[in-house]
């Protein structure tokens, strides 16, 4: 069952989804097997043999009316990551020029805009640990491609609809790849496989190919030269 707070992405709707999920978990309903969030929605997986659909709907409806969810605070213990990245170029960002054109700016301005401020991990999804980051300025409300890019690498920085997706696995996608970093959002061999959680922030820092290569050389952590700071 999906509880959606907005059809368009806003910080408030995203905060609402995160807080609502926490509240559903706190209810501890028998038959709710799993909860998750997307950008502006909370998704509740339940077993219809244990919990009737109408009963769950009624409980969730009641909960939506319990408070102003868009004003709910973000989760605690958030982290800000500053991640070095290469933008543009055939390998790292083959679609930077195309994306910049759609956003109505030059490639240089595009990179400056993408790196201008920390972006919130709005949700993890699509692939394990993979963050959807937002929100970018309005001119970045660009559509996905109608076709699919055959494969982007782990660490691909892609854009569409005022968001950046930092790919945690190598996969086909409809998002345009503008850059690349060495940050692994999913680390199957690490004690904590998921590097990010919703509410964390990421700021990209544009570096040269040479600096990027130096930062990646010998990195075993999966951080790819990123710097981690607590946000409280």
């Amino acid at each position, binding site marked *: 069952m*999906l509880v*959606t707070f907005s*059809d*368009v*992405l806003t910080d408030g709707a995203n905060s609402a989804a995160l807080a609502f*999920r926490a509240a559903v978990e706190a209810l501890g309903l028998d038959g709710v*097997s*799993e*909860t*998750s*969030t*997307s*950008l*502006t*929605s909370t*998704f509740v*997986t339940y*077993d*219809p*043999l244990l919990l009737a*659909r109408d009963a769950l709907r009624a409980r969730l409806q009641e909960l939506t009316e319990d408070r102003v969810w868009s004003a709910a605070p973000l989760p605690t213990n958030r982290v800000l990551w500053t991640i070095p990245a290469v933008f543009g170029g055939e390998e790292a960002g083959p679609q930077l020029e195309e994306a910049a054109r759609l956003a109505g700016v030059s490639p240089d301005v595009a990179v400056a805009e993408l790196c201008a401020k920390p972006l919130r991990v709005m*949700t*993890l*999804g*699509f*692939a*394990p*640990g*993979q963050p*959807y980051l937002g929100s970018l300025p309005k001119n970045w*409300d660009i*559509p*996905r*491609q*109608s*076709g*699919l890019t055959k494969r982007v690498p782990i660490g691909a920085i892609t854009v*569409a*609809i005022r968001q950046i997706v930092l790919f*945690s*696995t190598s*996969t086909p996608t*409809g998002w345009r790849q503008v850059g690349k970093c060495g940050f692994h959002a*999913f680390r*199957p061999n690490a004690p904590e*496989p*998921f590097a990010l959680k*919703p509410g964390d922030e990421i700021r990209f820092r544009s570096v040269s190919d040479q600096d990027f290569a130096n930062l990646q050389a010998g990195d075993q952590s999966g951080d790819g030269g990123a710097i981690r700071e607590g946000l409280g």
Partner: protein
Amino acid sequence: MTTSLLIHRAGPAMTVQDLGRPGHMGQGLSMGGAADRTAFIEGVALLGQSLSCAAIEMAAFGGEFSTTADIRIALTGAPMKATLDGEPLVWNASHLVKAGQRLSIGPARTGVYGYLHVGGGIHTTPFLGSRATHLTAGIGGVLASNQTLPIGPDSHRGDVGKTLTPEARFEGGSVRVLPSVQTDNFPGVVRTRFEMTGFKRTPRGNRQGVELVFEGRPFATGEQLTILSEPMVAGDIQMTGEGIPFVLLPECQTTGGYPRIGTVLPCDLPIVAQATAGSALSFRFVGHATALQTHKSPEQILAQLTTSTRPLVRDPRAIRDLLAYQLVGGVVNALEDDRME
């Protein structure tokens, strides 16, 4: 000493699977697990063991195996030609494999995913509570020739020679679909056309999902390329930017921005997973009440399948001693025609 399964030759897409690892959607990790969950549970029923016992999933091609000690096996899912030291083995049945005997499993005769279950289960190290390989997430990997897998302790040693008759699901068919969150984004005429359209599975498909082709206009909504990504689950029928349907399977992404016209009922999803390239598939919407009637937990399915197992009565045609008599000309040919089951 731990019993080992030796893989002498691995087909190109063999993986260790169980019922997957639920509980991580919020971290972007889909449940994964056997592409044909029914076939997986059939194997558990034939061996009378726990649902947590992992098996080997074989996509389209089998392999050659032996073990370091006597083990029980069960073969389920897409029927494949199986022999033990050259003697034919019945599919959808449990058998004893003695240490050193050579188990050989050929390509699927129909369907896609066949399963080799072992008594005690494949005993690899679990990750987040499951042994299921999740290829797209990079959890585990494709099994390779000359690889060795540990086998867990078997509590029902010697209990073999059972069979069951699986529900037909290896050649496409009609699939029931539940309306979901975005169904209404598709105009009524488009939904009707979707139900009237005959689809075929294309060769493009894997454990993430399968692509379908059809004749006619694309299935599109208005705001196809700009809707927000929302949670998605195995069974969802996603329309790509080109208006082509993809039916998602256990290794699907957890969120997606392409609209979904509906969700295949879990009990019908094996029909899609097992459809070979070119198989015909059609879809029809059902309501929640109907869907609820079909819904069963893995434990309920297992209980039902367990009561449907029966002793394996050997087909006289498959007994080598009889062949030695040459009772009828052409019996050997009949065997090679794969009429074992």
